[in-house]
């Protein structure tokens, strides 16, 4: 800033911060945000609340808002009612394979689109973006027929296969790699006689790590929470965690202490990851999100 602009601050009204729209945050700002956070957390807390009490709890309209002592008993019943261990194992396995694959292929393609020059680069990338518009849920019928034909229906591989690479993953890694990998570094590697794939392995992949971590977390969450496709293609005897949850509430009267103990158990692993890594996730979004 030059001397000429020095008088400018004096023209601001006091207490106003022109760096943002609302200026200095007041009680209203904090109040709204705190209300929103409480609202965000409440349904999760509620499900733990019901899960920690016995079934009589659900008969009261305005129950006490503190947990009871029955959570472990209800959790134990969850494992008796549905094949919950199997479901947990299945979901972890599917999530792990899908995540590694999405991150690897997403980074590979994202790198090509961000840093390599080839005929059709822009057109092909536009096509990738356009595929985001194809509603995948509508393809479940032919996908199911194909899986049945290939005798994969009922197998976990049927859940894994369609999710091995995503347009969002490619897009995300491209956005990040454009700025994260200096073109000079790539040229230097090439001058040193590095092959393309070695350059990728030794230069790009390490640089991509922060964005790859975010992508990994989101992919794992999405996979963990997937419902329609596993519902269509898997067998109730070999469920993922979400299918097991749905099984818990079958029967004519729903035992909410049992069912919500199940939802709490299914949410805990993800919640744990989120609490540990929440700060990184958010700063990752802030860096990588669509900026134009």
């Amino acid at each position, binding site marked *: 800033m030059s001397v000429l602009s020095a008088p400018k601050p004096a023209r601001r009204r006091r207490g106003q911060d022109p760096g943002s729209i*609302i200026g200095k945050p007041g009680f209203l700002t904090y109040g709204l945000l705190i209300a929103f956070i409480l609202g965000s957390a409440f349904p999760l807390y509620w499900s733990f609340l019901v899960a920690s009490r016995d079934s009589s709890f659900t008969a009261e309209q305005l129950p006490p808002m503190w947990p009871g002592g029955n959570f472990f008993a209800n959790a134990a019943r969850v494992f008796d009612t549905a094949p919950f261990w199997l479901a947990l194992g299945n979901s972890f396995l599917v999530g792990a394979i899908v995540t590694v694959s999405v991150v690897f292929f997403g980074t590979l393609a994202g790198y*090509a689109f961000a840093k390599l020059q080839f005929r059709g680069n822009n057109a092909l990338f536009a096509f990738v973006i356009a595929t985001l518009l194809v*509603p995948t849920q509508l393809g479940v019928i032919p996908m199911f027929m194909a899986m049945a034909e290939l005798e994969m229906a009922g197998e976990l591989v049927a859940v894994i296969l369609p999710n091995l690479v995503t347009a969002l993953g490619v897009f995300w890694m491209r956005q990040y790699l454009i700025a994260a990998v200096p073109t000079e570094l790539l040229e230097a590697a090439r001058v040193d006689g590095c092959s393309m794939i070695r350059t990728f392995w030794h230069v790009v992949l390490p640089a991509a790590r922060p964005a790859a971590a975010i992508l990994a977390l989101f992919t794992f969450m999405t996979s963990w929470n997937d419902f329609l496709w596993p519902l269509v293609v898997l067998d109730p005897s070999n469920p993922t965690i979400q299918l097991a949850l749905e099984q818990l509430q079958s029967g004519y009267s729903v035992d909410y202490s049992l069912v919500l103990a199940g939802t709490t158990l299914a949410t805990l692993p*993800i919640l744990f990851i989120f609490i540990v890594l929440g700060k990184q996730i958010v700063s990752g979004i802030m860096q990588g999100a669509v900026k134009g």
Partner: protein
Amino acid sequence: MTVGTSGSTDSEGRGADGDPAASPGGGGRQSLRDRLNRWDVRYSPYLYIAPFFVIFAIVGLFPLLYTSYVSLFDWSLVADDPVFIGLDNYVALMGDARFWQAMVNTISIFILSTAPQLAMALLFAVLLDAHLRARTLFRVGLLLPYVASLVALGIIFGNLFNSEYGLINGLLGLVGIDPINWHSDRFASHVAIASMVNWRWAGYNALIILAAMQAIPRDLYEAATVDGAGRWRRFVSVTLPMLRPTMIFVVITATVGGLQIFTEPKLFAVVPGSNNGGSTGQFQTVTLFMYQQGFENFDLGYASATAWVLFLVIVIFALINFWLTRRISSTEGPR
């Protein structure tokens, strides 16, 4: 283009200088290496992007096209021979009151969820853009709903909105409002289902918008303030136009996702496992209807026709919203 070609010639030229061990003697080997190197530079990029296109062809494009093929048949999951019936499935669908009800439900839930969700997302992005204390805590909190599973949410909200002993009606009773029949009343059920969508996605979208907002050059706000622009004016004349690409992205993804809504209405049913979307289909959505036709009634042809009609509706809505978003956040907008 230019960077690639110059890069490759560079590496060839300097590679020969910098690697004397390879040059003596083997002129043929040298050129083979050169050629391999050139192929590597030219074709590797296609290899790197190939997995995406291969997988998309198998799980995106093929289903889309094959769905249209199946929709022309009387194709039962349990019988053996599909019978070609032309457009009969579509004709039947157009006359199916249940389908139209599902379509109206879908659009109603979509509007009830998308509009408040985006308005809330914008509001919270603006609030978070200020210089807050503990702002990481607030940002992380916004993402909390996104962590919960949809199935869990469906069950939790089903419990909260229970008309006899649900907490929501209990709270309404405190302020003297009669219990609302959240499951059987059509509009009320749409509100309840939309609230799940709003709850889950508002914070996520707020973060996406906030990220774009923080990329807006701060001196634009300073200049606007100096020019005497108030908060609202700064928001409408500076922020919104600068956010346009992000808003388009957010609106389009919300549209594509919102019109396919399935898990929420399926889990909201009082009878577990039901695909009816309530006793009279009052909250059955088109995707739920499609699932019911395909995997409960085993009528794959009819379900495929449903999928295609929904696909067209999604495309139309995406285009309308694209146009609207461009107009609304344009600086050249009507005054």
